[in-house]
């Protein structure tokens, strides 16, 4: 019986969000809460000679001022390389240098301006290439001296390399020699910002017995607990992290940063409640943003247009500190070929320090960046081979008999069906009607196609959990550690539970905020793994619940448990289905008409730990980083003025193999939203820096996002190749609408203007510059 799966069930948080009742971290009362503000570095790289806080301290209402001298701890999820406040040196413009705690925001802000800092500028490195060049200054003096939190982080002594991952499958160098067609390209893509509409913020309070309360706009409440516990030697149970609604995350709120500062701020004022407020401008410079990427790719095909081999070097611009970037380098390495059959692969993926704002996960964990590079060279290779770009991809699509770059054998369940996606995309985009058409003088319509795939890179032992309790009306409450940041995972989990219990989804109430003491640990709300990880835990909790209902039923009906059925919110014996008990009368235990109590209250719980994942072999890269893949094809059509290099994006299509469409409208809108984010990023967004590493556009007025009226027509379609071990066969999908959009737009524009060297962002100016270089 289908009650919920496959239906466009309305968001569980819908009415809270349209009535103003949905509360975000900064919406909680501020009465009696002190305010903290940050002073950040104006230099990209400089030694701190002196910090004078005397004038600032004299401001009435200032409670405390903190600088890097006050702490020795270092932070980070993988490599402990980042101080909470700069210690002796600033490594990026925007790095927190001092923190003021005051009675009111206006006082804190005034005091921040009165802190005097003397800097001595140091040489600035702004690209991975610069950082890797001979004699480059070391951004971190001894990168090998930092504590590693996981064993697969490989900093290289005496360099700016924080980690490196190596993939070697077959013999790429030999195979390339035999290729008929070769494409060799270099790429340099700039960093950009997540720009979630809610500016990051955190609050902290420490009770006199040492209980730490943190409320934060974070995707990773359990990581906040773990990192604060680890850094300050506080037992994890003494730290309670709560996360209400968060106003968009996109990976940017998976890093732990402001929580540490808020904790230190509270500690400095005797544990009083403190809220740390940063401005939008600081949010764009101080907390982590999206990586930049350099790539050198050589790829070759035989005379029949079959890709034979690829050699790649990726250099991730992780900025001044690593955060999660080494794992993004690993993620790129593990998926480096894209969803294609390639027998010979050689790939080095390096995580390199620069003096940019440090980077963290951004929707799709660096896949959007390497996919841009890879799908550009695939397009160029198709052209060299004389193949239609869609047909070329179809021919080379990963299939049974292929292995991934990390030598995981292809199965449909594990990876999905790219050819089905491509066939559907061909049809829906009217691909065969022509990929470039002149519509009037100097104006052309052009299409571009790109494919993507993605697996995940969680720790191999990541966990999730769920608990389910009954209300007296027979409805249930579902509690997980999943953060609600827009991706609607909670509604999908409710659907999974409703389906399993055989009750309508309205009867499942979800707890939308997370409290680390009340909800079972869920690794992080990242990597689109909510439905897979928490979904599995929910199914187990449901099984547990059903078993207990059966047990109560067998006692009430006096028959063996095996005779008891549970469905439609009722418990009955298969021998006499007419006599049933509704959930509301049996879920809290049963009271017989004579008052006898029978059974026990029903409380469901389920947990799951990822299984079967491994770290990559350092020599060959062999291993499995994530539970499964999701793949798809995307087509973008533009109308371009070939004289002015301006263009309008007309339409964009995604066909994605999601395994199972459990909520058509929710999933369509999530994918369309990803496409929109990718379109905005690809067409206009970049963090631009001057030669001294100072951000040039750190406000929303100068860093332009796409607004209404600029959006193309978005179309989303799904292919369903079930992932066998996932709830109802569903694959991860929430980030993926973004991945190949920059590449598809780049391919469309390359096609429109006849230019090979297109780069991000795809602004008319950048396209014009490329055209000048390529002039015959």
């Amino acid at each position, binding site marked *: 019986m289908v009650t919920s799966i496959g239906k466009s069930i309305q*968001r569980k948080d819908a009415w809270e969000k349209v009535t103003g009742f949905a509360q975000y971290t900064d919406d909680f009362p501020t009465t009696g809460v002190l305010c903290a503000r940050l002073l950040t570095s104006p230099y990209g790289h400089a030694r701190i000679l002196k910090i004078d806080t005397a004038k600032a301290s004299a401001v009435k209402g200032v409670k405390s001022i903190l600088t890097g001298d006050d702490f020795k701890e270092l932070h980070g999820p993988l490599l402990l390389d980042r101080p909470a406040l700069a210690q002796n040196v600033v490594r990026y413009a925007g790095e927190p240098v001092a923190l003021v705690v005051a009675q009111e925001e206006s006082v804190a802000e005034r005091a921040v301006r009165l802190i005097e800092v003397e800097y001595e500028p140091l040489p600035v490195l702004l690209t991975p290439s610069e950082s890797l060049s001979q004699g480059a200054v070391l951004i971190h003096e001894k990168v090998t001296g930092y504590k590693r939190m996981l064993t697969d982080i490989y900093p290289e002594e005496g360099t700016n390399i924080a980690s490196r991952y190596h993939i070697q499958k077959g013999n790429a160098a030999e195979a390339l020699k035999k290729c008929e067609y070769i494409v060799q390209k270099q790429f340099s893509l700039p960093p950009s910002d997540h720009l979630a509409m809610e*500016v990051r913020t955190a609050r902290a309070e420490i009770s006199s017995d040492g209980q730490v309360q943190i409320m934060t706009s974070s995707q990773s409440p359990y990581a906040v607990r773990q990192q604060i516990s680890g850094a300050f030697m506080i037992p994890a149970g003494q730290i309670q992290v709560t996360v209400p609604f968060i*106003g968009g995350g996109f990976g940017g709120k998976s890093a732990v940063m402001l929580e540490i500062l808020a904790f230190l701020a509270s500690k400095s004022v005797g544990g009083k409640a403190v809220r740390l407020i940063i401005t939008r401008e600081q949010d764009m410079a101080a907390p982590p943003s999206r990586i930049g990427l350099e790539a050198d790719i050589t790829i070759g095909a035989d005379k029949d247009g079959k890709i034979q081999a690829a050699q790649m070097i990726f250099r991730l611009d992780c900025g001044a500190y690593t955060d999660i970037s080494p794992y993004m380098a690993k993620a790129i390495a593990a998926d480096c070929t894209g969803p294609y059959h390639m027998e010979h692969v050689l790939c080095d993926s390096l995580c390199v320090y620069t003096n940019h704002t440090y980077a963290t996960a951004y929707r799709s964990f660096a896949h959007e960046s390497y996919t841009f590079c890879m799908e550009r060279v695939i397009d160029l290779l198709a052209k060299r081979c004389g193949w239609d770009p869609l047909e070329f991809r179809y021919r080379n699509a990963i299939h049974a008999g292929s292995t991934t770059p990390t030598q995981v054998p292809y199965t449909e369940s594990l990876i999905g069906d790219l050819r089905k996606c491509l066939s559907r995309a061909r049809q829906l985009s009217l691909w065969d009607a022509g990929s470039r058409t002149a519509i009037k003088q100097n104006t052309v319509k052009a299409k571009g196609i790109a494919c993507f795939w993605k697996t995940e890179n969680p720790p191999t032992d990541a966990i999730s959990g769920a608990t389910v309790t009954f209300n007296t009306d027979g409805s249930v409450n579902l509690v997980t550690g999943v953060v609600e940041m827009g991706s609607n995972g909670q509604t999908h989990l409710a659907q999974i539970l409703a389906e399993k219990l055989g009750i309508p989804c309205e009867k499942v109430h979800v707890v939308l905020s997370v409290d680390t003491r009340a909800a079972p640990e869920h690794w992080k709300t990242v990597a689109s793994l909510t439905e897979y990880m928490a979904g599995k835990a929910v199914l187990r909790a449901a099984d547990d619940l059903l078993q207990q209902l059966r047990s109560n039923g067998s006692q009430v009906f006096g028959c063996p448990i095996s005779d008891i059925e549970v469905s439609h919110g009722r418990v009955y014996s298969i021998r006499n289905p007419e006599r049933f008990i509704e959930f509301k009368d049996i879920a809290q235990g049963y009271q017989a008409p004579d008052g006898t109590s029978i059974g026990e209250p029903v409380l469901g719980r389920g947990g799951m730990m990822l299984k079967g994942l491994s770290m990559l072999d350092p020599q060959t890269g062999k291993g499995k980083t994530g539970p499964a893949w999701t793949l798809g094809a995307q087509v973008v059509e533009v109308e371009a003025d070939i004289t002015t290099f301006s263009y309008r994006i007309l339409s964009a299509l995604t066909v994605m193999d999601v395994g199972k469409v459990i909520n058509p409208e929710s999933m369509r*809108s999530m994918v369309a939203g990803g496409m929109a984010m990718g379109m905005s990023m690809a067409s206009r967004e970049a963090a631009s820096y001057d030669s001294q590493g100072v951000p040039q556009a750190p*406000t929303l007025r100068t860093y332009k*996002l796409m607004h209404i009226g600029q959006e193309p027509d978005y179309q989303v379609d799904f292919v369903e190749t079930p992932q066998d071990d996932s709830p109802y066969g569903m694959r991860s999908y929430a980030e993926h609408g973004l991945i190949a959009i920059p590449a598809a737009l780049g391919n469309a524009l390359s096609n429109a203007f006849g230019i090979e060297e297109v780069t991000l962002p795809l602004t008319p100016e950048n396209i014009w510059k490329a055209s000048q270089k390529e002039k015959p």
Partner: protein
Amino acid sequence: MIELEGKTVISLNVNGDSHEVMVRPSDILLDVLREQLGLTSAKAGCKNGDCGACTVMVDGWPAKSCLMLAVEAQDKKIITVEGLGGKAAVQKAFVEANAFQCGYCTSGFLMVCHALMTQHPVMPDEIVIEEWLQSNLCRCTSYQEIRKAVHLMYDSLQAADV
């Protein structure tokens, strides 16, 4: 406002009620609504007039409450999302069109759309809708959903008229 420094009591008419609040001359309407009246539907996304998340309705027109001083709002009728009461056409339309994800920009969009309908009781051209909505940013949706919500809002109005 006699004192230029320190705080002064002013009266604000918000969602049909009159409130006395203590403000500095430099206090922005957004902060006063949120911190003194507990009306947190209006959000601070940039405090620079660039994102529209703080949009409220002032005398029937949309206004960015981060660009308006609280003292400027005296003698004006201010409506926030809390004042829509949960039954407004625009709220139903946004739910039906799935026109939000994280919900942070939603209050601003609701108020600009509600004001649009106040000023244009009959659905205007698409270009007018775009002009009204283009100073509000949404990072989650594709904007298609928000556009659809505007259409549904006008559809429901028509249906009610019949």
